[in-house]
């Protein structure tokens, strides 16, 4: 069941990223591999640079020899990656932070494996590591594409941090004040507020549902990565402690040599799962909010 959810989430992420990459690159049907490469590269351009992408496509059409077509398309790919958006805003900062967070996340996992090498021998560790690497790389790539397509970096960053903050608060409260159910219920209600607010606010500012969905997706990337860094960081700093009742119960049958290794492995797995869960839930709620907000914008005002 867990594997099925993982595959579904990974598949959704891949589809969203590929769809965003293809959307603006598909105005003319690519005829060969260099043309397909260029069409893909053009999709990486910021929205306000799209005409330059079409200029490159128009020139490639004139290049006849295959090696020259490859060289031209490869050069254009480099150019599309280097061209900054005309109105960059906080976008480059968000890209920098997301890439730094993704790198830090990978470094934390690597440190965990070095510090507790027995984790590698655990059941399903390699599959989890490969999935984690794919998700982190996919999230970083998605962030780059979204920012270059004009996602509002500042709003998405604030929304992502806010969402991660509520998740962390909820998790802390759930562990510390488990018997106090009403408080937890209120916090649970607060979980969707940040993504809903981001989707609606970005739609209002960008005036389209697409603008709102871009902000919602970017805030989901930020929220997931921040949440992962916090959980994985705490797991490694405290050697997985304090151990909960479930971990103490399951440890003897886990096959791990010591409690710390088992707890760190378990907590890193939880952090990886939450990276996916928080990103997906935040993205879903934010996109839904943006779509509804756009629908209300389009709805005609009642006449007296």
């Amino acid at each position, binding site marked *: 069941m867990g594997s099925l959810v993982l595959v579904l989430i990974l598949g959704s992420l891949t589809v969203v990223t590929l769809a965003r990459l293809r959307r603006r690159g598909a105005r003319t049907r690519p005829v060969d591999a260099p043309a397909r490469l260029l069409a893909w590269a053009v999709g990486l351009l910021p929205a306000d640079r799209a005409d*330059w992408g079409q*200029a*490159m496509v128009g*020139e490639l059409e004139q290049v006849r020899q295959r090696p020259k077509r490859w060289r*031209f398309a490869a050069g254009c790919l480099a*150019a599309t990656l280097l*061209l900054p958006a005309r109105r960059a805003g906080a976008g480059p900062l968000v890209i920098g932070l997301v890439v730094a967070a993704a790198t830090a996340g990978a470094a934390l996992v690597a440190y965990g494996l070095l510090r507790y090498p027995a984790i590698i021998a655990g059941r399903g560790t390699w599959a989890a590591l490969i999935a984690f690497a794919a998700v982190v790389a996919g999230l970083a790539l998605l962030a780059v594409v979204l920012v270059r397509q004009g996602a509002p970096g500042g709003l998405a960053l604030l929304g992502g941090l806010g969402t991660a903050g509520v998740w962390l608060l909820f998790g802390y409260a759930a562990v510390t004040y488990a018997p106090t159910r009403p408080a937890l219920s209120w916090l649970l209600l607060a979980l969707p507020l940040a993504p809903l607010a981001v989707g609606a606010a970005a739609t209002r500012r960008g005036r389209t549902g697409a603008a709102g969905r871009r902000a919602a997706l970017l805030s989901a990337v930020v929220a997931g990565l921040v949440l992962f860094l916090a959980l994985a960081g705490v797991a490694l700093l405290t050697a997985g402690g304090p151990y909960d009742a479930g971990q103490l119960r399951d440890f003897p049958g886990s096959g791990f040599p010591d409690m710390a290794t088992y707890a760190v492995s378990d907590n890193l797995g939880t952090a990886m799962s939450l990276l996916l869960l928080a990103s997906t839930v935040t993205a879903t709620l934010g996109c839904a909010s943006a779509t509804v907000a756009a629908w209300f914008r389009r709805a005609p005002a009642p006449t007296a």
Partner: protein
Amino acid sequence: MKRNRSPSPQVVRVMHALAAEPSRWRYGYDLGAEVDLKSGSLYPILVRLADRGLLEATWEPGPPGKPARHLYRLTAAGLDQVAQLATEAVAQRPPVPHRRWKEA
């Protein structure tokens, strides 16, 4: 504060090539071949020049089913910049040493 850096040799080459026939619209691929710049270097240069108002662009409709082509030429500000670059190049050239009659 806006930086006022001197343009790179590649930018200067592109501007000089465009200034050679100021009224003529140029294709990107031909321009790159003329100044020996790959597309990865040429397009960022063209984009920067256009952002600074030194380059203007227009579209040439392609035949049915083919994409349009982008054409470029320098604006008046771009031509002024080329003239200024030429003036600066002359000013920075080291003076030719005068020979004395006795040495001749």
